[in-house]
């Protein structure tokens, strides 16, 4: 039964994404290209800043430049995959205001599914490849071996990170439902998330602790990097699995409470 439901979600998601593509073909193609260029430009300037700084500093909180590059590449990859799949959140406010969200609620499939995953841009998915390529290059460049166990651990971390990011997005949706304020909230989240693009040790003892145990953004880059460098005990990941499940349950609870005060747009 659970498998059947999962298959339905997958089929519907594929169809929605395909239709999103068809819809784009019917409209402007130029926009998608501009976006891709913009995202690559942004990535480029981030790397530029890294080069500028590390061009003079040999080490940054104990990491060499190749290591810092890997951390940036990992962050970029994980953060962008999450954004790519959960693009729906950027349209959420509009959907509530124009009444589409009501249709989401009454659709047999979860309204969270639609609110988060229904707007995947297929053009964005193309970017996964260069981003992944960047990670692989940075990994090799850092001098640490690309062995099976490391890859496995990194994959596990990515999955945990994805669950956590989804939980936070659900909490943001809850805020959005209650106060109709999504855009600044999601941007605030992105600002927080951005902190993980550089080794979290930079933020000092308290900062690192917050970014590891309270808002585990460290999972996006620093922790998988340390796993690769052999500086991290993989058993700790079990703790993060538990934390991710806890966050997920918490976010779903907050969501159900937020819906209680949902007032729907008037006719």
């Amino acid at each position, binding site marked *: 039964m659970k498998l059947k439901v999962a298959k339905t979600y997958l089929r519907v998601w594929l169809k929605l994404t395909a239709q999103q593509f068809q819809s784009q073909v019917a409209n402007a193609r130029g926009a998608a290209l501009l976006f891709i260029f913009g995202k690559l430009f942004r990535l480029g300037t981030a790397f530029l800043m890294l080069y*500028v700084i590390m061009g003079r500093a040999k080490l940054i909180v104990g990491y060499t430049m190749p290591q810092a590059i890997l951390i940036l590449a990992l962050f970029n990859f994980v953060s962008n995959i999450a954004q790519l799949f959960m693009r729906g959140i950027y349209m959420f406010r509009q959907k509530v205001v124009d009444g589409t969200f009501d249709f989401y609620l009454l659709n047999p499939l979860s309204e969270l599914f639609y609110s988060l995953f229904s707007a995947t841009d297929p053009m964005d998915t193309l970017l996964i490849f260069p981003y992944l390529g960047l990670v692989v290059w940075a990994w090799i460049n850092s001098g640490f071996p690309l062995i099976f166990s490391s890859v496995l651990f990194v994959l596990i971390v990515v999955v945990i990170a994805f669950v956590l990011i989804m939980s936070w997005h659900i909490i943001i949706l809850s805020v959005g439902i209650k106060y109709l*304020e999504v855009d600044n909230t999601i941007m605030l989240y992105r600002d927080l998330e951005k902190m993980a693009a550089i080794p979290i040790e930079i*933020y000092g003892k308290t900062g690192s602790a917050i970014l590891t145990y309270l808002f585990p953004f460290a999972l996006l880059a620093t922790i998988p990097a340390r796993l690769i460098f052999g500086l991290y005990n993989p058993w700790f990941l079990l703790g993060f699995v538990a934390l991710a499940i806890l966050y997920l349950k918490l976010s779903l609870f907050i969501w159900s409470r937020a819906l209680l005060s949902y007032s729907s747009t008037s006719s």
Partner: protein
Amino acid sequence: MKKYLSIFSITLQEVFTYRLNMVMWRVRQIFVFLIPFFIWRAVLGGGGDIYGYSFAAIMTYLFGTTILRSLVMGSRTIDLGWMINTGALTIPLMRPFNIFKFFFIRDLADKLFNLSFMFIELPLIYFVFHPPIFLQTNAFYLLCAMSSILCAIFIFFYINVIFGSLAFWTRDIWAPRFLLMVIMEFATGAMFPLDMLPEMWQKIMLLTPFPYLLYVPLKIYLGQNISLIPQFIWVIFLGLITKIIWQKGLSRYEAEGR
């Protein structure tokens, strides 16, 4: 004059209505400052310098850009594209006031709002993190800096109107806006001082209007002898382009959607 005061007041009211939005926006501004702060502290905190910038110098720069952002880049004219697309532009167009003055006043309201919050947040940050900063005392430089900032305000205003006017020709304005934002983030000197880049890069950047928004005014404040002339030229040039594009665009305006 009174009508402009009303516009100013109403814009502020609009901002206050969305409380959560307001709070979030301010919190985000704090983050914009924090991340570079931590990076620079890690790199320079122990002493030394990078491309001539000591920790104190870079902190001053960071504080400077944070304040200047609110002053120069606080704006509501970003709404222009949306207003054109939905036909919402019709209403202010039909009113008995100059449409550019209308937009500009709204921007001023936004800047005031942002600045007033800055006066609370900055002392707070200062007390928590004790970053070393430099205060300019030379009157001449202060005067030049203020003129520079004024030019920067106009340049940004014109850029926004030009980009907003794209909506007269196309429905899709978010993509070019996004690209503009990404480029400006870097080219205005908000991420790091542009003179950390190789000479060649700096020369190229100075051919665009962007460094004149944050980097140049700040440098003048810090006491560097930079000519105000390129900025004046940009103000005049962009002003002319804005006028032309606006006229052309307005003639295409169909007030659809209403």
